[in-house]
Structures are given as C-alpha cells and as structure tokens.
C-alpha cells in the first residue's frame, strides 16, 4: 500500500480512472497515515466522517460516468482557507473553533472537481512567519529532520506533501510562504500570478500580495490542479478577468534555446555555499538540456524586505481590525467598556507576531509617517516591479536560490524578528512584483536537508514556468526523494 500513498496527483488520477483504486480507499489510506504521523503536528482539524462522505460522493460521480482528472484525488487545505465542514482558525487563538458559513472559492473549485479534503493544515498565525513557529497550535516538524523547521508560513502544507500524507496541499504566499517551506522540505511549491487565484475566503493578511498556490510533488501535478483551481472570481475585487487556460500545455516544450536569467543580486553575500552548490548544478543541468544562462540584474531587489515590512504590516493592520470580539472570534471574559473589550479580546487572541505587525502597520499609516513610510514603500515597490519587467526583456525565466540556507533549527531565529524576516530575502521581490514563481527541489545541503531552486516568470506565464520546471524534473529525480520513515 505504501506505493499508492506515495503516488502524485497525475498518477492517482490515472489509477482512479482505471478503477484500480477508489476514492474511499485512498481517503482511508491517507487518514490512517495522518493518524500514524500525528507527531508532525501538521493537521489542525481532521474529520474522517466528512472526508469519507466526500470520497463516497466522488466514487458515485465516477460510477455515473464522470471522468475528471482530479475526481477522488485527496487534498488538504491550509487553515487560511475557510471551510464550512472544518474549523477555520488561521492558526490563531482569536479564531479558535470558528466555523465558516461558506467555503473559500479555491476550496469550492477543487471540491467541484471532485477532490476529497483530508482536513485543515497548521501554519503560522495569519500566515505571518517563515518557520511555522508562530502558530498558536504548536510547531510543525520537518519530515526530513525533526530538529528542523518545515518553513513557513505554509509549514503544515509543506510537511504533509513531503511526508506523502497528501499528494497535494493548498498554501498561500504573501512574501514567500509557499516557496520557502517547499524548499525546506524538498517539494514543489508554486505561487501563480497575483490575481489569478481567488482571494475570496482566504483569511486576509496583506491583500495586495496574498496569493493562493499549491504544494505538490511535481510541476506536472501542480499544472493539473491549477486547471481547476485558478480562474476569475467576481467575488474578489482584484481577481484577474483572464480566460481559462490549460496549464499543462507547455509541459513538454523543449528547453533548447530557453534563456534563463541569473540575477547576480541573488548570489551575493549571505548565500550559504551548500545552497549555492546545489543551485549552480541545477543551472548546469539546464545548460546541458540546451538552455542558455543570461546574466541579469535586479538592482532594487535588496530593498524588497524593507518595502515588504511596510506594505504587508500596513495592509495587515487594516485587515486584522475586523477582529474586535463583536461578531465572531475570541471575546475576553471580563472588561469595562467597549474599547476595553476590544483591547482585551485582541490582546488575548493575537500572538506576538501579528501584534508586532499590527503595530508596525498602524505606525506607518499614522499621521506624519504615511508619506515617509507607506507612500515611499509603494514607490520603491514600483521600482522593484520595473526591474522584473526589464529583466523579462532579456530572458524567459529567472532562476535563483529560494533561501540563503537550508532549513534552520527550532528557536534559532525566534528572538530576532529581523533575522527571521531575512529568510524571505529571495522570495519577497517576486511577491512585490506579483509574478508567478516556484520552488523545485534541486539537491541536499548541510545535514542532508533539502535545497530549492526558484523559478520566476513574467505575469501570466505560469504555464511556461511549469514547463521549465517539468523538463528539469524529467531529467533529474530530486523531486522523487522521500524522507525516511514515511
């Protein structure tokens, strides 16, 4: 049975079509594995009876003659997406036990395609963090090395796909929250163009950056699920009204003649030699496949972190103002008046990182500082985006490391917020520009911990980017490596 548990989306789709396995069998198999590996602390809410009901419904659809590529394939959702049938908490105490009256559009789209939900996944509180250590519900362990963080904020999503407890998991990326955990756990993590996935029902952190994406075993699996997940949603005011497309259509494009931009700013001081070695050999592999490396420059990329830590907290302070203990969420047990009720409820409900970011955001938006910080950051954001536009005139995709180091240990950065923020040095610029980007496994570094290669493409070019990743995965087997014990 272990081979079945290790199969990816494409393979499971084939097996289901050939009636060699049923959705119910797959759901039972993975629910049992989830139970067995509870020590990872990746799931926050598992309800086998709901999962099995969804699986039975998928099998009935199949019996009636439906034939979708995802019908009956299991998935798990990051606890940033609201769901009617599982609690939706954003890993925060302030939303403990919250039952959403509706499903997020992403959840709904995938359910319509017949995917079977295994439960909700741990993450950093309100998706704020790079190690999953900010969850109100405890740390998630990295399946490769239980002393290492699984990355964040989508740490539950990365851990379950690395441990093969689910063939695919949804995730969200605001500054690197898909790519960094994917790199730390040796899986494929993909963030599409900002605006392609609906934000409806995604608990808001920073609305001009929040982008839903996927953790999968391969680029091919990601393309298959994107086909059902992405699309225009009138309920999201920044949703892109673009025609539907087949994200698998460039998977078999040859790499021959492809121009890969290599930004010198992403190979500078701070990049650890083990990561650089793995990334350079991935680039050499692409050259062997016929691609050409082009030196490019993203001169303002190094300002990504300063800009991000103005823009994202500003938007967060506004988005998180809705948690006031009035309509939903935690309310303090005793208080004097309305303001005291809100203050106590928020102070008890939010953990330290959301509080920090709410304070930063409130400050940069406050009278006298708005121009110096918020407007300035939005101006530099444009300069960063223009760097990307210029770069994509010289190359088809950009390749770089995802992180400066392999996964770090628990507690290594928790007392120093700035050191933690710098974990997203190479991922934040692409987020600010809104371009599609992904991490694919490209080897192992210190202590046998995985290394990720980042690929970035111009707006709306995710199909091409997935093709570039797929060609590498056809030529190498890093994405097939499994941590021991799973």
């Amino acid at each position, binding site marked *: 049975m272990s081979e079945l548990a290790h199969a990816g989306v494409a393979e499971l789709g084939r097996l289901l079509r050939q009636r060699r396995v049923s959705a119910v069998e797959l759901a039972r198999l993975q629910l049992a594995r989830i139970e067995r590996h509870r020590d990872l602390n990746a799931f926050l809410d598992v309800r086998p009876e709901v999962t099995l009901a969804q699986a039975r419904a998928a099998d009935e659809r199949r019996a009636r003659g439906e034939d979708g590529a995802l019908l009956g394939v299991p998935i798990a959702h990051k606890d940033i997406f609201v769901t009617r049938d599982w609690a939706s908490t954003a890993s925060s105490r302030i939303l403990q036990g*919250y*039952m959403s*009256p509706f499903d997020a559009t992403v959840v709904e789209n995938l359910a319509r395609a017949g995917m079977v939900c295994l439960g909700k996944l741990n993450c950093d509180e309100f998706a704020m963090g790079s190690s999953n250590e900010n969850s109100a519900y405890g740390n998630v362990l990295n399946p490769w090395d239980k002393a290492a963080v699984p990355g964040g904020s989508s740490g539950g999503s990365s851990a379950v796909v690395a441990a093969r407890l689910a063939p695919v998991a949804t995730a969200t990326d605001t500054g690197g929250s898909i790519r960094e955990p994917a790199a730390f756990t040796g899986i494929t993590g993909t963030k599409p163009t*900002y605006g392609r996935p609906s934000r409806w029902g995604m608990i808001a952190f920073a609305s*001009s950056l929040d982008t839903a994406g996927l953790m999968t075993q391969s680029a091919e699996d990601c393309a298959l699920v994107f086909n059902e997940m992405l699309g225009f949603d*009138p309920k999201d*005011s*920044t949703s*892109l*009204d673009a025609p539907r497309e087949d994200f698998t259509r460039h998977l078999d494009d040859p790499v021959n003649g492809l121009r890969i931009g290599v930004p010198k700013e992403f190979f500078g001081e701070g990049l650890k030699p083990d990561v650089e070695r793995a990334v350079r050999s991935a680039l050499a592999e692409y050259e062997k496949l016929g691609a050409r490396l082009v030196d490019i420059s993203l001169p*303002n990329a190094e*300002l990504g*972190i*300063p*800009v991000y*830590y103005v823009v994202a907290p500003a938007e967060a*302070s506004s988005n998180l*103002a809705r948690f006031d203990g*009035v*309509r*939903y969420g*935690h*309310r303090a047990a005793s*208080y004097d*008046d*309305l*303001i005291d009720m*809100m*203050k*106590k409820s*928020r*102070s008890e409900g*939010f953990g330290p990182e959301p*509080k*920090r970011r*709410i*304070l*930063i*955001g*409130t*400050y940069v938006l*406050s009278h006298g500082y708005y121009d*110096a*910080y918020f407007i*300035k*950051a*939005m*101006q*530099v*954001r*444009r*300069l960063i*985006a223009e760097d990307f536009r210029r770069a994509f005139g010289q190359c088809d995709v950009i390749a770089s490391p995802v992180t400066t180091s392999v996964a770090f240990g628990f507690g290594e950065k928790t007392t*120093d*917020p*700035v050191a933690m*923020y710098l974990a997203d040095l190479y991922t934040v610029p692409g987020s600010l520009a*809104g*371009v599609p980007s992904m991490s694919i496994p490209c080897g192992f570094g210190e202590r046998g911990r995985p290394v990720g290669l980042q690929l970035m493409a111009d*707006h709306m070019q995710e199909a091409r980017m997935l093709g570039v990743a797929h060609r590498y995965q056809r030529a190498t087997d890093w994405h097939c490596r499994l941590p021991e014990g799973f």
Partner: protein
Amino acid sequence: MALTEDDVTRIAHLARIEISAADRRAMLAQLNDIFAMIEKMQRIDTTGVAPMAHPLGGQQRLREDRVTETDARERNMRNAPLAEDGLFLVPRVVE
C-alpha cells in the same frame, strides 16, 4: 529615527492592543530593529515615481447594484460571542 515607549503606547492604543509595561520595552527594541532595517529604502530617490498599490495596475471593478445574497443571518451569527434576537451584544456605548 527611533521610536520611544510613548510611541509604542500611542500606536498600541490606536490599534486597540494592550501591552503590559514589562512587554513594552522588549517590543520597543524589536520595533526599532525593524525600523532600522526599513530605513534602508530611504536612500533611494523616488522623485516622480507613482506609488504602486496593485501588482498588475488593476482598477477596482464595480458590480451591478442588485441583490445577490440571500438572507443567512442565522448562519452568519452562529459564531457570535454574545447575541440575542438576531443582534450582536456589546457593552453599553450610549448612556
């Protein structure tokens, strides 16, 4: 430019967050570290650069003004900490 403890008290009140006197000092040190890092962007000349609020420069769409939602008051109020007769209860605000 460095923040002071008074700044922390002021913005915490604006954000409706309570910070104990003991935590205030640690928070102040962390915020000052973060702002020291943020200051790096000040060295870039951005004269004449239009602020970028949305990665694809999109305009906010407006929808047709018609009823699209059905009444779901009961379902929507299921998570209310304190409610009565379809109303959210809060401490008295008008004397």
